[in-house]
């Protein structure tokens, strides 16, 4: 005996297609979601814009203060130089930075150093300022890690 509620063969066709389409849509949606999740998870963070760091350096016979400057790769370092006595020079060895620091009371001069590569960059007075001239040296330490307190 046939149940009259049982769908006929003609009635079962569209329902089956609907279920198939639903399964397909779910599968595609899941796949897409997984793909998006994987893509998002594996995506590199967008490159950070270059940061800026300003350091005030006082030059006097025969020292720079501070004589050690720490920064990180990608930082644009602005070094504001001022003299407490005569005019001095400021040269970063291995770069084209070489500038005169004006005498005391004649203002400051600023040099820009783009820290593109990790390493230690020695700076020194490039203008003979007395017998202790050789003591006037310092270092810029460029590291991959961000130093505490860097602006």
């Amino acid at each position, binding site marked *: 005996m046939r149940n009259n509620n049982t769908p006929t063969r003609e009635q079962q066709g569209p329902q089956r297609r609907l279920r198939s389409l639903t399964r397909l849509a779910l599968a595609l949606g899941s796949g897409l979601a997984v793909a998006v999740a994987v893509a998002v998870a594996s995506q590199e963070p967008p490159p950070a814009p270059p940061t800026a760091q300003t350091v005030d350096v006082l030059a006097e016979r025969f020292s720079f203060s501070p004589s050690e400057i720490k920064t990180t790769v990608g930082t644009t370092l602005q070094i504001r130089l001022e003299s407490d006595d005569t005019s001095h020079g400021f040269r970063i060895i291995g770069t084209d930075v070489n500038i005169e620091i004006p005498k005391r009371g004649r203002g400051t001069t600023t040099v820009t150093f783009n820290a593109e590569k990790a390493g230690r960059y020695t700076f020194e007075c490039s203008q003979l300022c007395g017998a202790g*001239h*050789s003591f006037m040296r310092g270092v810029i330490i460029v590291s991959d890690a961000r130093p505490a307190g860097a602006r």
Partner: protein
Amino acid sequence: MDFQYRKPEFQDGVLDFRRFVLLVTHQFSDRIRFVSELELEHAFVEGQVDAGELELEQAYLDFLLSRAFNVRAGILLIPVGILNERHEPPVYYGVERSMVDTFLIPTTWFEVGAGIHGEVGRGLRYRVYAVSPLNAALFTVEEGLREGRQKGSETNAGRVAATGRLEYLGIRGLTTGVSFWTGKSGFEFRPTFDVPVHLIEADARYTRRGLELRAQFVEIKVSNAAQLNDALTQRVGVDPNIGERMRGALLEASHRFFSSRRLGEVGAFVRYDKANTQAAMPPGALPLGQFDRDAIVVGATYWPEPDIAVKVDYVFGRNRSTVVQAPNSFNIGLGWWF
């Protein structure tokens, strides 16, 4: 360069071109440098006459190997105190150097030797040198160690002295340091006895917005001072009264109260300066009050340019003697550095 007019109390004034300095340097490469300083004192030198002096105060090669480790050899400035390595007139107040920097630290103090120097961290500097010793036979009670400097001239190096300084410059405006000098200085009396001399020194200098504060303390121990006095008495017939300990200190406050880009700067200072070359005597010897000296110095400096200083000061000299009076003096100086 240092040109002075000095007027001690009860005496005629003296005009003196005190120091004329020539600096000759050469850079062989980024890592090897030569530095020299030739100084003519009192403008005139004549053999066998106590007039001026021509001194080679520095002449060394510097091998700059790294920030932390460098080698230096030649005639070196002894790295003791604030003034000895940085002794040109525009960098200190007063026409004359302090008594601490004259009798206890005999500036300008230089000897032949070699050593290492460098800097680590954020401004921790060191210098350690092996140098020729002092000559204890020339110590005097009036001028302490001063006449004992061998000055790099055919020096006796039977025993090598050691000297060094550790200083911290990591805080902007502040320089603090400790120094030492130690060496056996009795080469004229060996093998009968020797005269080990030990000096320790501590100093601080703080500068901010024209205000400058300086403090310095020095203590010297002259071992076997009794034997030294006996030996010198036999040699010259007069007891030189060399103390077993010498001690001194100075405190100075100054302020650049006027500053103009066009006219220059003016500063005033006050200094308390004490030097006692007989702080402790050998057993049986008594100190003499005139060698326990101190002074209050007040004055001003005008810098028309940062490297030119016009100085004026008045020295209120004192001592502990009831017989010998310490004279006051009025001084004018003109110094420059280039």
